[in-house]
């Protein structure tokens, strides 16, 4: 299955984001490239601090001081979102054609406004609806995310709702203007396991019904396997492997991906000890020059201390690993 030749919906090219802190400059994103096609779901996985949230925050323009986008570009439907001249385009896009769902719904919603206000303000700003029209649409949206008694809910405040319901409200808010891309940053991490399942089902259902593209960020491989077409694995601010989700999980190439999959507990296998990956992720204030995974890698070779780039392995699969390249060339 080759990648479609037409313009991807969203494309990030060599994104570099730095954070200037007292301890030094944290290189959160060191040349990240990915793309999402229409109607596709991309999962981005990685441990905490791998840079996955930073990459998508850059897409939504949420990198504030002391963060700074140093280089690279982000293209939405072919147009740059980082170009200072295209600010009007960005304002149109953000919230309307690209929407975002965050991790913790309690802090992501404004505690002093009703959720009715918070949903309708998006509608009134982007779509120019009147108050009544917006209210109607808001109730439709609440219905779409399986929230009952929508009329009552509109007048409620975030602290009067449960965690799962708040996340549904976030999803409803995101869907308000019928976006083409939804970015979900760890949408289920802050929820109970049972609620997690519900929210994920909802997302899958919506994705199919509305044919909306989704970028799903998570550290949970199981979630990715369930929902995503493609997956990108991030480590230390770089993407180390990206490709079709089923293929990547069936036959991972990068040692880190292999380690992640090995470390994921499975119900169908009996293991005596949990497997983990030795070592710790590198300090992003002074990241290593070559492959960041080098100190923890069991396949390391001499070439690995040099800078490496993503190598295409065919079938729209990319890996950032010298060993994999050698294997493939063979």
């Amino acid at each position, binding site marked *: 299955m080759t990648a479609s030749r037409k313009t991807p919906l969203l494309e990030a090219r060599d994104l570099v984001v*730095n954070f*200037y*802190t*007292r301890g030094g*400059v944290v290189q959160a994103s060191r040349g990240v490239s990915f793309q999402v096609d229409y109607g596709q779901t991309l999962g981005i996985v990685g441990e905490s601090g791998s840079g996955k949230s930073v990459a998508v925050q850059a897409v939504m323009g949420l990198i504030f*001081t*002391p963060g*700074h986008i*140093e280089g690279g570009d982000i293209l939405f439907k072919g147009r740059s979102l980082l170009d200072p001249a295209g600010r009007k385009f960005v304002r149109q896009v953000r919230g309307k054609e690209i929407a975002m769902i965050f991790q913790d719904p309690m802090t992501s919603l404004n505690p002093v406004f009703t959720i009715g206000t918070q949903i309708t303000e998006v509608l009134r700003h982007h779509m120019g609806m009147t108050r009544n029209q917006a209210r109607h649409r808001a109730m439709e949206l609440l219905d779409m995310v399986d929230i009952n008694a929508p009329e009552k809910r509109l007048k409620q405040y975030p602290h009067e709702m449960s965690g799962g319901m708040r996340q549904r409200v976030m999803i409803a808010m995101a869907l308000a203007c019928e976006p083409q891309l939804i970015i979900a940053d760890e949408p289920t991490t802050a929820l109970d396991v049972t609620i997690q399942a519900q929210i994920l089902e909802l997302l899958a259902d919506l994705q199919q019904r509305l044919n909306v593209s989704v970028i799903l960020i998570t550290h949970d491989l199981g979630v990715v396997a369930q929902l995503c077409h493609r997956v990108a694995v991030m480590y230390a601010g770089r993407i180390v492997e990206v490709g079709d989700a089923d293929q990547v999980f069936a036959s991972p190439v990068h040692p880190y991906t292999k380690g992640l999959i090995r470390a994921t507990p499975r119900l169908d296998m009996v293991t005596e000890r949990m497997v983990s990956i030795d070592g710790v992720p590198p300090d992003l204030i002074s990241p290593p020059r070559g492959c960041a995974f080098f100190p923890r890698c069991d396949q390391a070779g001499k070439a690995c201390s040099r800078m490496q780039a993503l190598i295409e392995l065919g079938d729209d699969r990319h890996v950032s690993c010298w060993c994999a390249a050698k294997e493939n060339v063979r």
Partner: protein
Amino acid sequence: MTQPRTDTLEQALAQNRFEWWDSLQELGRELKRDKPGLIGVILITSLVLMAVFAPFIAPHDPAAQDLTARLAPPVWYDKGTWNHILGTDHLGRDVLSRTIHGARVSLWVGAAVVLVAGGFGVVMGLMAGYLGGRTDAFIMRWIDTQVAFPGLLLALIILAVIGPSLFTVVVVLALNGWMVYGRMTRSAVLSIRESPYVEAAEVVGCRWPRILFRHILPNLTSPLLTLAILEFARIVLAEAALSFLGLGIQPPATSWGLDVAMGKNYMFMAWWLVTIPGCAIAVTVLAINLVASWLRLISDPQEREKQYARHMAGVMRKNLHAVLEKEKEPEAP
């Protein structure tokens, strides 16, 4: 700052002895980094020294009248002399000497009120927080009620009735100002009381005085210190206001507020009588505030990070390229 590994108990115990000296050194380093705080500390130290050695530093006796040299202007005027560098007041008293001695009163009142009000307030807060139940309810009701009193008016009335003096001013200001210590201490105690290590200490069998002193009090010192310093500044201003209104320090004693009140009548012909004591108050309070904000900064790591971020933001906005270039340098092979 890495600590050397201690392999034996003796080594560990020996290390403890030098800990407080190390923390003092660390404090000194912090101070050098934060210029406003440094200025504040220097100013305060100078003021304290000036107050302590006032009789030796002041060129004249502050109460000495010299009616032949009334309302003499400061030295940089034509009629000024080096004998009275900052001029004289309407009774011929040297302004410089009065200002130096005035520091004694202000600092003394500030310290005394903070100690008395703070002492009482902290004890109340500890009792309310630790003993809980009826004691807590009673103390909190008392605080809530007294906080709603019109403090300054009551202070003025009481001072007028019992007669203003150094002692009564301290008493009245302390009566008015202990509540804030009480509330702060109580909330600190409540939050610490719930922590696991206090629970553990209770389970092990520690009796409450020990818990109080070993576990709870050390956690209070930092916010308490900042509060005390801010209150100190407020008291200096309050004493000056009371003296200005005539219900604080009485003549022939010197107080900056009193001097401003007396100079007020000659304001238009001898501006220095009002300006100089007022400046002294402002400088003192400013120095105290600088020290207080420095303390707040170093005791809360979040605040420091925020301050750094703000500083970087300003720098970045002004000169982004220079910053980027500077950051790239260390990576050169």
